[in-house]
């Protein structure tokens, strides 16, 4: 970028050198179309159309809606692959699916959640328990027991008639770690965080 004051001329000064600098300066305003950009040129100006086609991001636990079912992309909790209906979510066809049974809460929301069950004494996920890490559909996020922690993966937004899901809003984008914190005389805490 040049200093625009260099384009100025003083009274009596030859204008041609400044004219040449002006031509050089004006070249920068030429528009070039980058990737995904179309230019519609007219004598009076140019209209820019940017077609922002991006590749989808297939992040862990991505929840997708299909008809009256949802699928959940591969992800892990504490290196354990969660299960849907007794099958791990990375099992091949047919892909494990959650049926949209049960409906939403009073505000038309429900959630796809991960539930992690820990051994009450050790506070650890039992590696022999195949149902220790499950993916479920719930209409209440709060309900969890001392040994079972609940973590939201996505919110499902239902139509006003509460008959079908109109939108999925993803909540979790990463694999998760989990820690069970015991507490004296009251239920322990399940803490989830991204890894």
């Amino acid at each position, binding site marked *: 970028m040049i200093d625009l004051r260099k384009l100025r001329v003083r009274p009596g000064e030859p204008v041609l050198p400044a004219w040449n600098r002006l031509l050089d300066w004006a070249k920068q305003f030429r528009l070039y179309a980058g990737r995904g950009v179309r230019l519609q*040129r007219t004598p009076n*100006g140019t209209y820019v*159309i940017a077609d922002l*086609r991006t590749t989808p991001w297939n992040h862990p636990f991505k929840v997708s809606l299909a008809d009256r079912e949802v699928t959940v992309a591969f992800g892990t909790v504490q290196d354990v692959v969660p299960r849907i209906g007794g099958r791990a979510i990375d099992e091949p066809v047919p892909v494990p699916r959650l049926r949209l049974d049960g409906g939403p809460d009073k505000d038309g929301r429900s959630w796809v959640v991960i539930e992690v069950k820990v051994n009450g004494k050790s506070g650890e996920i039992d590696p022999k328990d195949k149902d220790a890490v499950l993916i479920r559909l719930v209409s209440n*996020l709060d309900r969890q027991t001392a040994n079972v922690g609940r973590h939201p993966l996505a*919110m499902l937004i239902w139509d*006003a008639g509460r008959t079908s899901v109109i939108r999925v809003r993803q909540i979790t984008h990463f694999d998760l770690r989990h820690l069970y914190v015991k507490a004296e005389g009251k239920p322990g805490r399940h803490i989830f965080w*991204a890894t």
Partner: protein
Amino acid sequence: MKSIPARDWNALIDQLRRDQVIGCTALEHGEWRHPWQVSAEWNPDRLRWEARIQPGFVNGLDAEVRVAAKDAPADTLRRLKLTPAKAAKKMVDSWLTEDPRMPLNKWRAIGRDAQPESVSAVGIDEINASYEPVPEFFLALGAGEPPKSPLSFAPSTGGNTRLLRATEITLQKDRITTGTDWTFGSGADGTFAQFNVTYRLPAGARKRAYLRSVAKLRPPAPDDPMARLMVDWESDPFDTIPVATVYLISPENAVQNSEPGPDWSPYVKHHLFWNLIHDVTVQPPSGSSENMILPTGLALGVADSVINQILATINDKNAALAEFLGKRTVEGRFWTI
């Protein structure tokens, strides 16, 4: 060549005409947008700048924005069972998944017409002022520097004449507070002082996190450790995390102190990109309290002098109390999921 031919002159003008941008359209095909992504837009009906925010979640619930009911999305009014007539002058909490528009009307000036952050006098004829610096990006776009002196609004250097405004969008989550107080009584061996730590969920605390727009984000001053032990003290009832700074830059030669209008250009700097969990370090039930009893041996002592004696820094009781309170103070934390 001693003159500029009309042909060359007109060719330059035609080129500049052709290459001037007269409009721009961005076609979006399910483009991925991160949670809390903010876009600022001018609302020609309400004559103000507004933020549209990609839904972000705290503890699995989308945050809410407080808006006038007359400006609330239809989904919000339906959920709250409000008709436009009933909603006339109410404020309502609209969830981000209902796509509300957050009014942005608290702006601070940066640069040419900014107010000094601090002013100090050196002698009688020198006044020093410090200003929020103009980000380099906006200097390159032509935003003016702050004045040299708080008594002058003349541009300091260069010919930059554009004005700059900024507002902060923050996320807040209400939580239980920790409070302290003292009570005194007579024990079997004399007078005792009781240090109480109480927990309270303030009335009107919201379950969901909520977004606010403030002109400037001021981190809360750290509590004085002695004040926490000395007098009735209560912690903040919420935690705050910055979401984004929205900047507006004016056209060239804008009149100083003018309000941002439709011809200003928005830019957003994001600070938050992912959904969050919010939790507290300790989870006492609201309304509960814990206490520590300290025998003083000072029958009929005046409360203030008894407390002062207990809290003397050379007193072991001071350290014991500080530890007692430290382990029981509720502090909030946000983390990414």
